[in-house]
């Protein structure tokens, strides 16, 4: 299930829902992404963030996250998958994104969660704008994020 929302989420509640939905799972992996106060990007080393604004493309966002989840479901044996992404105005230490995966074995749950996060970063239409007390600018995409998805493509002929 996929949710795009302005509200916060409770990881404990989400974990228990995933656990119930997963049936006879042996492994559950959760990932949560948080707003960092000091964002060490190439543009702004050491800048202290006051707010982070998240814009998205309604419709395409849900569609692209569903596509990523479906791809993960074809590559690994998953019993349940959950993605939540927040949009709007966030503050340091706020939760931004949650991915939960359940599987019989830990290898699949870990790989799928990581795959979903890697593709979400580069293929789902979200954009971050960060504001300090003095400045405001759109976050540039990380080279490391484009590189991260390449290793999944190398494995696509397995």
């Amino acid at each position, binding site marked *: 299930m996929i949710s795009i929302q302005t509200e916060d989420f409770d990881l404990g509640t989400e974990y228990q829902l995933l656990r119930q939905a997963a049936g006879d799972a042996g492994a559950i992996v959760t990932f949560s992404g948080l707003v960092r106060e000091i964002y060490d990007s190439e543009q702004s080393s050491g800048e202290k963030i006051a707010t982070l604004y998240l814009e998205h493309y309604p419709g395409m966002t849900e569609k692209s996250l569903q596509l990523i989840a479906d791809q993960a479901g074809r590559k690994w044996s998953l019993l349940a998958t959950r993605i939540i992404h927040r949009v709007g105005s966030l503050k340091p230490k706020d939760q931004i994104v949650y991915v939960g995966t359940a599987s019989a074995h830990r290898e699949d749950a870990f790989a799928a969660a990581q795959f979903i996060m890697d593709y979400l970063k580069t*293929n789902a239409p979200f954009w*971050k*704008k960060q504001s300090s007390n003095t400045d405001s600018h759109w976050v540039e995409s990380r080279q490391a994020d484009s590189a991260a998805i390449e290793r999944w493509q190398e494995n696509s002929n397995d």
Partner: protein
Amino acid sequence: MLTIHYFASIRESLEKNQEQLELPVSVTTIDELIAHLVALNPHFKTVVANNNKLLVAVNQTVVDRSFALSKNDEVAFFPPMTGG
């Protein structure tokens, strides 16, 4: 009617979220659409046409600039994604 959406830094620079446009018969690809938008609005060139990192989606799927447009397509221009 073509619907064109703009997001993030592109939206801010153009000072609009979206616009609607009758697709001229001479415009068949994204590249040609960009040329057409530049002709209508020279500012579009500095914001969008020169940006080689610009992404384009048609009907909510990212496509390349040779993609063939249909008259009621939903087109979107945006910078590389930075979610997560």
